[in-house]
């Protein structure tokens, strides 16, 4: 590598405009290079190079910077240090651990703390699986570290390296900086493999190939798992105005979905929401591992009052971390709350660069950035020969709650599941306020085999039938609004009755209730099946000429409304009893009418 003369490589600040600064004398800098800015060594990234003028977005508060201060190169693009020590921790938008920052400054986040990353002092028990003479290809696993109670960190050869093992260290305690394996590449150069390696956030990590996703991400949320399923490796968006439940839904998914790893990005949202995660997650037990869900979680926080350029970076930081765990062969689910804040950060930087705006001030490259981001989701064959996946679930915060704005519209183009949150449902405290008419999942077809094999042969059919009822209800309600319910024929009134049960008893799910916050698929299916049973029973009664008013048995209806609380998740026998109750009531009723 050529040694660059120190003074030649120094840029000089020539202008300052919020998070965007310009420097002179920057010919030797590279596009997207990470730099340090000014006396406080603020972290920044070169985003435009024109002649010897470089434009830099700065990830920290720029107040106090002066023209004439120095810009120094780091020689590499904005990169993460990928190694054990990320799970259970919270980082800022450029992977600086907030717990470490707190040690330096107990309350507020100061600027100029420099480049911190995962803990370099911590000792990890490493088992080295590679042996001298082994040929290791890119992505191959050469050792194991128990990163948390539930997650084995598989130490991998970085994606851009391969070779023959020259020597290995014995199993034992090492830090991420210690050399573990010496590798000789084709050119006979020796490389030291450590627990951690660097990777630039804006470059997707390579995989062997993409494959089709045939397994759902099970979330324990009825409206998602049964009505609008998300495939592992798939993409979903949750748009909704303020207070409609985006964060609650994202938190529910982070808590309960059956992914191996959760990467949760608080992107331009509230500080308290991240605090809540830090306080609550360690106390919640993962139904599958029996351990705290924090053991599998990485948190990225750029709250709304943190610097806006780091908000732009936080999304890439999150997805790069997700890719790192995917490459170990894990199913990763990533939540980004909210992608709109990321888009707005792009807009703000773009505005400061005086770029020509497209729609609503957003830069013309907004759609391509959104597409690139969601394209980093997927189910893959990893370089190491495992199967891994990243599911991306992005919240969208449309201005004015109106879905016809650029971020929502462009997101809709690139995701397969759309969970539309509805203000009116939220006002009526129907939670989750996911509108069943506007939402969709593009995965129903490819997942139907899975549901038929793992849940019940008629699972998808049942779902379609119930959605159909909700569509019918919607039409009928329009009529009711004109003429009142009393004039509708009996069979239509029965549809309204069943639809109400589906809405209140099934689709509404109380995140604050112990039993209802997470519901296993078997119960989700059985509940819906019971509603169908009731529906058909009523229809049989209608055929006998029994009016709806007679069919409506308040006791049974109220049992349906409350079944989510009264039927324990692990004992569905109550639903059989409900069926018996239905039988005995209606058989008697039918008898009276038949006679």
């Amino acid at each position, binding site marked *: 590598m050529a040694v660059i003369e120190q003074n030649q490589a120094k840029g000089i600040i020539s202008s300052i405009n919020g998070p965007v600064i310009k420097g002179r004398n920057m010919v030797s800098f590279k596009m997207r290079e990470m730099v340090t800015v000014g006396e406080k060594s603020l972290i920044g990234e070169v985003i435009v190079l024109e002649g010897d003028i470089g434009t830099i977005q700065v990830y920290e508060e720029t107040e106090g910077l*002066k023209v004439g201060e120095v810009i120094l190169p780091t020689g590499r693009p904005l990169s993460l240090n990928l190694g054990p020590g990320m799970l259970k921790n919270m980082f800022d938008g450029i992977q600086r651990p907030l717990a470490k920052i707190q040690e330096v400054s107990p309350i507020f986040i100061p600027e100029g703390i420099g480049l911190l990353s995962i803990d370099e002092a911590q000792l990890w028990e490493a088992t080295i699986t590679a042996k001298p003479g082994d040929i290791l290809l890119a992505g191959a696993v050469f050792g194991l570290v128990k990163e948390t109670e539930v997650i084995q960190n598989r130490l991998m050869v970085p994606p851009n390296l391969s070779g023959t093992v020259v020597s290995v260290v014995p199993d034992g305690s090492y830090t991420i900086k210690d050399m573990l394996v010496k590798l000789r590449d084709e050119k006979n150069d020796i490389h030291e493999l450590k627990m951690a390696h660097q990777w630039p956030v804006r470059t997707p990590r390579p995989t062997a190939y993409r494959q089709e996703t045939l397994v759902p991400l099970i979330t324990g949320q009825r409206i998602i798992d049964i009505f609008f399923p998300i495939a592992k490796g798939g993409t979903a968006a949750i748009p909704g105005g303020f207070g409609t439940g985006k964060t609650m839904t994202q938190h529910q998914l982070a808590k309960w979905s059956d992914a191996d790893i959760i990467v949760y990005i608080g992107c331009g949202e*509230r500080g308290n929401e991240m605090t809540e995660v830090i306080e609550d997650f360690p106390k919640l037990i993962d139904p599958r591992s029996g351990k705290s869900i924090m053991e599998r979680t990485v948190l990225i926080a750029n709250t709304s009052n943190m610097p806006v350029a780091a908000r732009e970076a936080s999304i890439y930081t999150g997805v790069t971390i997700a890719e790192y765990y995917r490459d170990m062969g894990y199913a990763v689910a990533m939540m980004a709350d909210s992608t709109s804040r990321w888009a707005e950060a792009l807009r703000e930087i773009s505005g400061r660069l005086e770029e020509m705006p497209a729609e609503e001030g957003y830069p013309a490259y907004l759609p391509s950035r959104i597409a690139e981001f969601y394209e980093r989701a997927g189910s893959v064959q990893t370089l190491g020969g495992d199967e891994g996946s990243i599911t991306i679930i992005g919240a969208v915060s449309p201005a004015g709650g109106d879905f016809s704005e650029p971020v929502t519209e462009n997101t809709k183009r690139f995701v397969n599941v759309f969970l539309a949150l509805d203000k009116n449902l939220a006002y009526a405290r129907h939670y989750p306020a996911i509108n069943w008419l506007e939402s969709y999942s593009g995965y129903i077809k490819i997942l139907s085999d899975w549901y038929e094999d793992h849940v019940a042969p008629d699972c998808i059919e049942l779902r379609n039938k119930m959605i159909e009822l909700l569509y019918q209800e919607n039409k009928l309600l329009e009529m009711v609004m004109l003429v009142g319910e009393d004039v509708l024929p009996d069979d239509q009134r029965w549809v309204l009755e069943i639809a109400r049960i589906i809405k209140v008893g099934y689709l509404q799910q109380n995140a604050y209730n112990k039993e209802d916050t997470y519901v296993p698929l078997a119960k989700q299916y059985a509940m819906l099946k019971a509603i169908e049973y009731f529906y058909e029973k009523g229809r049989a009664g209608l055929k006998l000429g029994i009016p709806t008013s007679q069919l409506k048995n308040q006791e049974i209806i109220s049992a349906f409304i409350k079944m989510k609380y009264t039927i324990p998740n692990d004992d569905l026998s109550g639903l059989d009893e409900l069926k018996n109750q239905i039988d005995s009531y209606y058989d008697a009723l039918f008898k009276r009418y038949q006679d």
Partner: protein
Amino acid sequence: MKKEYLKIDKVVGPLIQVSDVDSVFYGEVVNIVEIATGNIKKGKVIKIEEQHVVIQVFQNTSGLAAGNSIINFTGESFNLPMSLDLLGRIFNGIGQPIDNGSEIFSAIEANINGRPINPMSREYPRNFIQTGISSIDTLATLIRGQKLPIFSGNGLPHNELAAQIVRQAQLGDDVDEPFGVVFAAIGVKHDDEKFFRKSFGESNVMDRVVMFVNYADDPIAERITTPRCALTAAEYLAFEKNMHILVVMTDITSYCEALREISSAREEVPSRKGYPGYMYSDLAALYERAGMLKNQKGSITFLPILTMPNDDITHPIPDLTGYITEGQLVLGRDLFQRSIYPPVSVLPSLSRLMKDGIGEGFTREDHAEVANQLFASYSKVQEVRDLSQIIGEDDLSQTDKKYMAFGRAFEAEFLNQGADESRTIVDSLDLGWKLLAMLPLTELDRLSPENIEKYFPKESQVE
């Protein structure tokens, strides 16, 4: 070393441009001294391009011209002296006393921009604050450390409501926990400011109030600093002096308009309705200063007030606010016109933090269910009202007629209360049960059998 410059290139609204400037820093405070009168205006560097500097002036820029003023770069950021002496005092929007009292002297100075609180250092707010107002306490509970704005409209009684909350709210757990009020008036009428001052005086809290006032006829650039000065004082009192601070701020709409005006003077690309694209981050830099910290006694509870232009909740000002705050109290014009005070429109109102601050041990075990049921039933009232508009109330079903009656009683008895009436949470919940009992039990699907058994008023049970 002080750097002085004579040459002003250009004055655009609240902004001036100066050339040939050396070694000033971004955010540096400048004094602009009018040579003839010696008058000093304050400003701040908001953009540096080589030798050219853009300064945002906090006072009126009229009269400023090349040659008649000296620009004096102070070498300092915008800092305010902090001390307990702030209590009981009144300042303008840049922190200068306007009550004829002395300057605040203190070795402790704080930058008015503040810094982001590390989420690791926050304590998730959980303590219920009783405001004595049924609609708020029951349905959109205020929590200590919460940021809960009042979305109002022109002419609605938001000031009265805010003053009533200040009078009635019990901020601390014990009587001996010190509390205080920081009040920021941004672009308000003299009358409104006087109203608050009088109300603080009447409730004998004036010596615990710090006021920062920018009147409607004061310079707009000062509106940008007013809330920052106020929140800096609040942070000092809460986090250095362990006080429970309630910040009342009005009117955020004037603040946002000032932001827009300055943005347009800077010729920035506007986003919705001409407001700058960074308005979300800018507002967040204010709202996020509320909260509680781990291992610290003090707290900042934040009640910003904004008037929604045209009562439109989707307007960027309420919209961006709602995206940052932890809920909102929405006032409704229709309720106001029907003389219901406080006219809290409960369906769009929300307190996101109430879930952890209510229930057994905080308020009462039935609180969540009663709140849910009131929301559900009252939202059904709206549907029934729409229907009755079309087919007439007489043709409604029996159940729907009960909803109509429930809706009227809910508004007249539950929402409506005196400006000096303070109800305990237990009274409010009992009132909720009494009203719910007007509906058939089968309609009350959010209530558990246990709570019905315990709280449902037996004598009024129909059917």
